[in-house]
């Protein structure tokens, strides 16, 4: 099952330990994490369920392509990193 890791900067606001969850797409994997951590959903995704503008997701080192639908496929042993985009230098 894929492993989801969240940026350390998010931990100050809401605890998000690394999670191993079922899912064949980024959406499915994140939904699985947020099912038991609903507060974290609003920090990563916006009102419309899309990746927040200044957030970034990498699947095995590749940047997410579908920021709206989060439909990028993830493999059985994928590493999903939820990061924040750099801002202000």
């Amino acid at each position, binding site marked *: 099952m894929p492993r989801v890791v969240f940026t350390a*900067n*998010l931990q100050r*606001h809401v605890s998000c330990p690394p999670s191993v969850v079922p899912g064949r797409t980024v959406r499915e994997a994140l939904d699985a994490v947020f099912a038991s951590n609903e*507060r974290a959903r*609003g*920090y*990563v995704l*916006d*009102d*419309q369920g899309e990746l*927040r503008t*200044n*957030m970034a997701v990498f699947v095995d080192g590749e940047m997410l392509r579908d920021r709206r639908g989060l439909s990028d496929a993830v493999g059985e042993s994928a590493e999903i990193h939820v990061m*924040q*985009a750099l*801002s202000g230098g």
Partner: protein
Amino acid sequence: MTARRLWAATRKGLFLVEEGAGGFRIAATRFLGDHATMVLADRRDGAVYAALEHGHFGAKLHRSDDRGGTFREIAAPKYPTQPEGEVEAKNWTTGQPIQWKLRKVWSLETAGDDRPGALWAGTIPGGLFLSKDRGASWEIVEPLWRHPDRKRWFGGGEPEPGIHSIVVDPRNSRRVFVAVSCGGVWLTEDGGETWTCRADGMRAEYMPPEQQRDPVIQDPHRMVACAAAPDVLWCQHHNGVFRSTDGAKSWQEITQVNPSVFGFAVGVHPRDPDLAWLVPAIKDEKRIPVDGKVVVARTRDGAKTFDILRNGLPQEHAYDLVFRHGLDVHPDGDAVAVGSTTGSLWITGDRGETWQTVSEHLPPVYCVRWE
């Protein structure tokens, strides 16, 4: 007398200011380092609400049930699902259609003494939300959001339109005014089911001549009402100062404000509708105090004349700008707080005759609110 307490929401957190023997001083900080856009002290139940805007993680709301000792996160307003193909107004700077996504909680008000726990929130882009449960959940006010004229609103200081002023009529909590930059003033008399634009008399020099009197494109920067005489409303507009004495059926322009008619903030005495405070600045592409002197303009006769108050305010090379929520009048009508973009915070206890400098080194101040 209970010591007066003030909250300041700044670019880098909340500051609690308390009155003591030596005057007002900063007593505590909360959310230090985080961008606080709004704060509300609910006088009905003592709760304190804080709106934060995390650059990466979005806009959030927190509530304290112990007068600001501790806060916990509550629900943030959530826009409805945007229908595919919905034609939206354009973001003023990007030219892209506005998305139905919460960018900022720009105003928070209690919804009336007869509705304990109920709150209004005004947001960017252009949303009005109601919570009936102290912020545990929020619902968008659909009739205003779906109003055809809502899509004529446009951004001013912010790239997208926003609701920054919410005035609940103390005689009837179903009667609510909101002011929009840029979208005029709107009134509901049935708790939000129907809305009418109430900006007749306002004027917008920044628009082509044929649109300058259009109520729906006006840019009120801040609107307040006298609690004891709520048909009297004061508005600091992008174009100048306006006042209504008939519940916003009509607005009269006030041109004799010295040293200038431009500004963002306005406050009115809770019992005397003729007593109001403004913080003038050079309009509008400069936005600095006239001659580098910070002054407060006060009228005590319904805008016939204005006093220029400067005792205790910086009078040399001061470039403080006071944003729309940067002035608040205490319920006692004597204390007024003013916070600036350059991190100054001044408080008067005598209606502006003398001012105490609480700090000149705060982060940029967006909002000051008395408990």
